[in-house]
């Protein structure tokens, strides 16, 4: 048993509130209920001191203990504790799910940004390759045009005709 519980049980040995509220080492609701009871007790002592300008004596504290020791009051503390724990669970669940939703949203934003970046990168490469291909085709057209002009210019040249005839004859032989 945790040391804290042992000490609490020892200090509360004059009355049974602790053992009535906390039924086992794993009675978490009972532990919360005891905290609520203790808070109520401290609140009562504070109000007593304010009203009477003195600390309550043992008999007066015992009266308080008797009033909070009843089965009805014990059940009230336990019900209150159960509500508080459920409130805590709700709060933690909402906080976690909200955080989870934010993480999913951030994840989606990052994915979208990456997709856009990839698309942009692909577009650039595609543009470069298109321009290179257009350049090659353009250069080919210009070259063919220049060859045509050159052939047109030399076709009536007698020297060229002679050289061509000799070349053809040589090839035929």
């Amino acid at each position, binding site marked *: 048993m945790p040391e804290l519980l042992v000490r609490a049980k020892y200090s509360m040995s004059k009355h049974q509130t602790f053992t009535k509220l906390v039924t086992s080492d794993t009675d978490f609701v009972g532990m919360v209920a005891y905290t609520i009871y203790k808070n109520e007790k401290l609140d009562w002592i504070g109000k007593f001191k304010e009203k009477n300008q003195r600390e309550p004596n043992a008999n007066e504290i015992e009266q308080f203990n008797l009033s909070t020791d009843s089965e009805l009051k014990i059940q009230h503390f336990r019900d209150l*504790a159960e509500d508080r724990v459920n409130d805590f*669970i709700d*709060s933690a669940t909402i*906080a976690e799910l909200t955080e989870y939703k934010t993480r999913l949203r951030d994840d989606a934003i990052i994915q979208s940004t990456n997709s856009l970046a990839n698309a942009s990168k692909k577009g650039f490469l595609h543009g470069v390759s298109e321009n290179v291909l257009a350049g090659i085709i353009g250069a080919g057209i210009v070259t063919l045009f220049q060859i045509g002009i050159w052939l047109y210019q030399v076709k009536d040249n007698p020297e060229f005709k002679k050289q061509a005839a000799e070349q053809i004859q040589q090839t035929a032989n």
Partner: protein
Amino acid sequence: MKMMFRSVSLASIRKANQNMIDGKKSDASGLPVSIQQDILNRRYSAQEINSAYARAVSKG
């Protein structure tokens, strides 16, 4: 990287604890209405809470 929901993180527990200290209700308006209702309608009994606590304690 896609995250997976497995358990409540310490950060959420701390946030919930602070809300309890401040006496504030958690803002669930960012969650779908059906989930808000599921959370608020689900009440754990003392036995369920104590069993969960016992499991947590036994895990160390």
